[in-house]
Each structure stands twice: as C-alpha cells, then as structure tokens.
C-alpha cells in the first residue's frame, strides 16, 4: 500500500486514504487529512468528535454507532456533517485513524 509523507511524518494508507494502523496515528495526520475532507480549520468541536471516536475505539474495539456519537458529543447528525462534510464514517473516523467502515456501505 501507499506511504504518504507530511511535515516529516510518514503514514501508511490504503487506496481510500484510511490509515492502515490505528497506532500510526498522530496529530499531524489530522492536519494532513483535513484538506481532502473539505475542512479548512480544526476547531475544538472537530477535536471533541475525534477524541471521542478514539476513546470509544480504544475501549470497545469498534467505532460507535452514529446515535452514540451524537448522544455523547451532543452534536446532532446535521452538525456532524457540518463539521465533517464527508460524514462520520468517511470523514471523522478517517481523521481519527479508525479502520475503514465495512459492510454494505
């Protein structure tokens, strides 16, 4: 798979631009991904979503369901789309370094 370089850091990614390994995540990754995900600047709200996704993944081994994400962060789905135009899966999970969503998507 491809390796991308950004600000002196290198990341292993797949063809959809998801990190191949959650452990390969670091804050630089967010800066690198934000452009392709249509995000101008990372706000505290973005940060809150990313941190929650990572906590949940570390604790449970899965990404949270959309309703759990909404309930815990307090952001409605509409607000999540405003923060991450590609949505919670392709946008937020990718930035948080979670594995690519699977199933019939």
């Amino acid at each position, binding site marked *: 798979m491809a390796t991308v370089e950004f600000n002196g850091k290198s990341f292993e990614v*797949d063809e959809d631009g998801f990190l*191949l*390994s*959650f452990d390969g995540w670091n804050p630089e990754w967010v800066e690198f991904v934000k452009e392709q995900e*249509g995000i101008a600047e990372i706000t505290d709200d973005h940060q809150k979503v990313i941190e929650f996704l990572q906590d949940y*993944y570390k604790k*449970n*081994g*899965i*990404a949270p369901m959309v309703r759990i994400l909404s309930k815990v962060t307090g952001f409605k789905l509409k607000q999540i789309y405003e923060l991450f*135009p590609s949505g919670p899966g392709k946008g937020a999970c990718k930035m948080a370094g979670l*594995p*690519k969503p*699977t*199933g*019939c998507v």
Partner: protein
Amino acid sequence: MAFISSGYNPEKPMENRITDIGPREYKEFLPPIIEKNFGKWVYHEIVEPGMLMHKAESGDEVYTVRCGGARLMSVTHIREICDIADKFCDGHLRFTTRNNIEFMVDSLEKAQELKKYLNDQKFSGGSHKYPVGGTGAGVTNIVHTQGWVHCHTPATDASGTVKATMDTVFDEFQNMRLPAPVRISMACCLNMCGAVHCSDIAILGIHRKPPMVDHKVLDNICEVPLAVAACPTGAIRPTKVEIDGKSYKTVAVKEERCMFCGNCYTMCPAMPLSDKEGDGVALMVGGKISNRITKPAFSKVVVPFIPNEPPRWPTMTKVIKQILDAYAEDARKYERLGDWANRIGWERFFEKCGLEFTEHLIDDFRDPAYYTWRQTTQFKF
C-alpha cells in the same frame, strides 16, 4: 485524458453545492397519452408475446412492446435505445422492475412494426439486442447482481450465469405456454441482493470453505467485535496469536461451526474465503411474492451445490431446464412452481425433476428448522 473540470472547486467543496433534490418527478417523462389517461385505465390484454394493450375510459389505446435487456449496458446501447424511442415513440420509454425495456405506441400497426424492428436488431456476435417478450405465463428477465464484474464477496458470476440461463430458456421468454409466470433470479452470494429468496427458480452463489484469517493485519483493518457479531453460528471468537515472537490481536474460527456464509468477510477484509474449487451455485425453487390464490412464499434449496463452470455453466443450465420442463409438463394452469411442488408433495417434486435429495437440504438452522421436518405420516413412497 487530461483533466477537465466540471466547475467544481476542490478548494471550496461546499460552495455552490446542490443536495437533497431527489430524483426527477416521474410525470416529467410520461408519454402524453399516458399522462392524459393517468388513473383511468379500464382493462388490458396481452395481444401477443411481448405486446400489451391498455384501454382507457376515453377509448384511447396504448400498445406496449416489451423487450429484454442485459441490465449491465453501455452508454452506446442506451443511446441506441433512445434512438428507437425517438424513431417510434416520440422519445419516451421505460424500464420495468425486472430490467426489461418497454416502448409505448398508440396503435397496433405501429406496435407490430416496432416489434419486428426490435427483433431484427442483433449484436455483431449474433445475439438479439432487443428480443421482444417477457409477458404472461413465460420466463421473463432474470433479476441479478454484480458478480465478478464489481463486487468483492461473490461466490459466482452474475452476468455470465444469467446469459447462459437466458440462452437456455430463451424460447420461454418469447412464448407464453407455461402454466404460470416463472421468475428466475440470481444472486452471487447469500446476501441475496435482489429476489432469490422469493423466486420460482433461484440461482445462488455459495462457498464451501471457511475464511482464511490474515492474523497479522486483522486488528489493524477490522473492528474485531463486529466480525465476531457477524457470525450467525457463533463460530468466531476474539483471540491472540503469536507470530515470529510478536503478539497479534485477531480472531479464531471454529471450522466445524462455520457454514461459509462470508458475513465475517463483509465486515472484516482480513477474512477472505472465495475459492475457485470450493465456490459454486445452489439452486432454490418455489418462492413467489404475489398474493394470488396462495400466500407469498420463500424459495427452498433443492440443489445444494453445482460447481462454477465459466463461461457457460452447462450443469447449472441443464438442471434449470430440467426443473422448468418438469413443471411445464405437470403443473395445472395458474399454478406457480411452488404451488405445484406443494400440491404434489416435495418427494414427488424431486422425483419428477430427477433431482437427488441429500442431507444438505434438511434445515438445521436453529429452532425453526424443526418446523421444516415432516410431523405426519402423510407421504408418498
């Protein structure tokens, strides 16, 4: 080819973005005669195979000529369909729920001219481009899926099996001599996209080997609890393995509990299971969705496995023809394939179709399996 912008600005992706406009309103595309008589149809008849006539209160008649489509088609082909619609139908046409193409005209003469024209069109290989048919008690188009053309979980091909089958039953597409319509459907894995679970005859791609687990990458690309929860038989559990002194979080598959459904691969890319020799098709029969006379029914498995034999799947098409012929000869008028099998009894169905009954056909999935066994002394020798 060099990049040509549509006007979309990747610097400002949300600028001038149009969303949530939904599909075009269907009324924009109605032929004038359909629009005029909308909701005022009195009766219809099938004039001849592939040709319908609808009579309206106003006395207007609409003739519909139905022709087969391969479903997977190029823009060139669609343009040719548009050319036909321009030439005969003032630019109007429609596709049916079984992916046939329907052209509508206002007189019998025009319809017959159109039918002749459509039947004359051939591809350079000799296949009909627009074979007219698919009406009444015949075999219409096969509802099918992606197969090896586009999907990542198939156990067989869709377009290939469907072409081979339609070639075998082509006469029934252009005729209406069966006891009732026979719906054939095809799905390339048991996700069963489409209609295989409720069709008179169904072709279903199946695996026969458990998934191969790629322990080294599994935890990186999969959410382990999802893979565990994807299994209908509880054959998967989380575990750790050591490879070259390194410990990996992964899953273990209890192979004697695995029935090769492939759900875990859908959820977890590190568990592929497709296999050239292992994969093949199962045939199911007797399903229907209409409420006519009998209730809707699921189709039942009658052939557990036929190997994949690309490009023509000869064994599979032979068995389908066998089932269709036995049904056509023996069933009563209006009797769907499942109605026929239920009336004569499934032991007779296997006898008449010349199919072998094996232990694979006996349901063993959870409590409801019990209800599929025979709790009566009523059976035929």
